[in-house]
């Protein structure tokens, strides 16, 4: 499981975009580095992050090796009613991770 953290505001106003922050523990190995003995370290990156709200996808990213290690993402979501916000991520080896938060809508 790829670890990570998620933050959303404590409560949001219906229809007003709110900030979602994600930080994922991952080396984002770009495939250009070498071990001390010269062996190539193979590419190993999180290549997709997707955010759903109430089960519907509202935001996603296709990541390449140009995204820094331990990917950090801040984006916005707009909600009409309270629901579950879920962020899922997957790497090029098929390893997954996710975090979820309940959003209170005033």
């Amino acid at each position, binding site marked *: 499981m790829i670890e990570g953290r998620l933050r959303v505001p404590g409560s949001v106003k219906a229809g007003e975009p709110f900030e979602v922050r994600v930080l994922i523990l991952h080396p984002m190995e770009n495939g250009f580095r070498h071990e001390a003995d010269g062996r190539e370290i193979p590419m190993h990156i999180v290549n997709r992050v997707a955010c759903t709200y109430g089960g519907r996808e509202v935001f996603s990213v296709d990541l390449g090796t*140009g995204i820094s290690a331990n990917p950090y993402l*801040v984006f*916005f979501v707009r909600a009409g009613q309270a629901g579950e916000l879920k962020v899922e991520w997957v790497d090029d080896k098929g390893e997954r991770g996710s975090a979820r938060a309940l959003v209170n809508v005033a």
Partner: protein
Amino acid sequence: MKRRHFVVSLMLPFAARAQGFSSPADPAKWIGEITGGSTPEKSGIEIEMPQIAENGNAVPLHIRVASPMTSGDHVKAIHVFAERNPRPRVATFHLGPDAGRADITTRVRLGGTQNVTVLAELSGGRWRVAAQNVLVTTGACLDEGSL
């Protein structure tokens, strides 16, 4: 005289390669591939990056595209291109009206001083583009990541 000319002509191709990782990839070509030939407007995108990045491993990148983000008028995707990176295509962000705001922040790797180009795809087949130059410096106290 002849020998000196011979040595100089041998050195020229190597001198060209000494300039950074490689010659920059052409953003125009990349833009054309994604837009299918449409010319993007050079407005409506704000890029916030430091002018000087102390370390190319993690450079903050904040992008805002002006848009009401309604179902009829919204940003569909934001593409990021770093022309001097070994793989210039950095990331693509997929948005839509449920995002509410075309405003994203992340941290990118920059393999040297270069222009970072941001291409926004809007609903209705519209395109916007902007670019920002970042000076990437190298410190003296590097340890090559050794443990």
